[in-house]
């Protein structure tokens, strides 16, 4: 059924991505590909992977933007983007077959590959480019929020987060229930003024992004005195070293 769930639960699982912390290392994209190529929507087909013009299905892609500030100053912002698991997901309602659906219990948007006819209309309806067509399988694929990992009781509890979150070396990605205002992710969004992407598209995305913290200008910056040689305690060196030092200094 591609109508959105009428009685959706309060749980809205999603990601919070900290643009202040992300270093643009693409590890999340790589681990996403790694996990999901044998997961729920496997495989994540590549075409011509070792050739001159490789293309393939990715659920997570890292863009890098330059933000030019008023003062002629600019900053670089690394910007990971995957499915935002929208509350008003247009990719679900346009689907003619019912293959595209939103789960009432946790809000995850998934594709039933058995029913997908590969008409690509959902990818046209999504403003965020979250859906990619697998030419090989002839069906649409998308981020599953690692639905096969986050509920997997064979994994230790700390591993039951999406692959992109568990792999982020900088701690820029957070996973949790954004429907619960007291959850860690909700508190983080509230504390850091987290925002949604393209609110004018009325899709009500669940994922939130945390803005880069304001830049500190050189004038306001404070720094500790540099560590100079005088701070080293030469007195604690060994007897022989002190004797050589005294002999050669003369």
């Amino acid at each position, binding site marked *: 059924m*591609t109508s959105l769930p009428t009685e959706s639960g309060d749980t809205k699982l999603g990601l919070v991505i900290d*643009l202040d912390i992300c270093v643009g290392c693409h590890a999340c994209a790589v681990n996403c590909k790694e996990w999901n190529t044998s997961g729920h929507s496997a495989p994540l087909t590549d075409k011509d992977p070792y050739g001159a013009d490789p293309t393939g*299905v990715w659920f997570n892609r890292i863009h890098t933007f330059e933000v030019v500030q008023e003062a002629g100053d600019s900053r670089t912002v690394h910007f990971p983007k995957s499915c935002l698991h929208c509350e008003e997901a*247009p990719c679900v309602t346009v689907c003619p077959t019912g293959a595209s659906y939103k789960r009432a219990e946790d809000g995850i948007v998934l594709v039933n590959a058995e029913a997908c006819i590969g008409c690509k209309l959902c*990818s*046209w309806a999504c403003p965020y*480019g979250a859906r990619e067509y697998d030419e090989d399988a002839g069906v649409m694929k998308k981020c599953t929020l690692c639905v096969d990992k986050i509920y997997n009781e064979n994994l230790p509890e700390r591993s039951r987060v999406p692959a992109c979150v568990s792999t982020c070396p900088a701690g820029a990605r957070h996973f949790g229930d954004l429907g619960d205002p007291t959850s860690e992710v909700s508190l983080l969004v509230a504390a850091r003024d987290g925002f949604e992407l393209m609110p004018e598209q009325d899709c009500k995305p669940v994922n939130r992004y945390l803005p880069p913290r304001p830049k500190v200008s050189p004038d306001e910056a404070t720094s500790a005195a540099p560590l100079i040689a005088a701070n080293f305690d030469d007195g604690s060196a060994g007897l022989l070293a002190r004797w050589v030092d005294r002999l050669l200094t003369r």
Partner: protein
Amino acid sequence: MHPAKSVILFTTASGAGYGLIAWFGLFGAFGLLPAELWMGLLGFGIGFGLIVLGLLSSTFHLGHPERAWRALSQWRSSWLSREGVAAVFTFLPAGLFALAWVLLGRNDGLAGLIGLLASLSCVVTVACTAMIYASLRTIRAWHSAWTLPIYLLMAALSGALLLQVFLSLWQVPLGRVFPWAILILFGLTLGAKLLYWRSLASEEGGSTAESATGLGDLGKVRLLEAPHSESNYLMQEMGFRIARRHAEKLRRIVLLAGFCAPALLILLALLMPGVPGVVATLIAVALFAAGLVVERWLFFAEAKHVVTLYYGESRA
């Protein structure tokens, strides 16, 4: 947007087929067309032929054409599904009407009522086709109040031109008046198309690189590095840019080949009864078909998807 040949063929061919059958149903029911065997065979043959060609071609671009029947299930929310249901339903009254016309030689009375139902179904089907595109908020050029009327007008016009071939071949009295209706349709369609193009040029897209990234408060946003060194599905499907470069020229082709030339030929055919009139009408049909294909190609190719904001565009 990438202008897929299959989708262009689908919307133009099925539009013309539905247009022709809608006119047959309407004028048949009101006794303005004789229920003549060969007119019926050829007319419905061409009409159904175009519709089937269009519907088959629309399945060419599917990853799994064998599952196409599933597309009839989600009519509650999906315009594509509604289009499928309407298209399948239309075969019922249109088929019955064609059978009554060809086998019983009747297009009046009960057959006429079925013909009217067929006409209405044709209009609904074309409207659903238009709404598939008009309902997408992500593409400003389609999410326009003009998309629906232009699809309906283009289908009505292509059907009317085909009908005029039959009217002049069979020398039906209606054929001496109908060209004026065609000229009015030309005027209306041309006007709608020009106003649509003007609205595209004058209104700005509501989404920007700033709103797409949420970084507008910090300053002006531009793409520094794409996610990958090579192209991807999103860029191939949504990032088509060739048409916007040649839009002006292509629009002129649509205006001249698709509207001005065939309208003049129809006017000429009015003054020249007999064979020259039929020939002029046939040339008008051919020219309009070419113009229609360019118009539909532009409709897809010119349209800019908001996802391009993540790939270097600044407004969509």
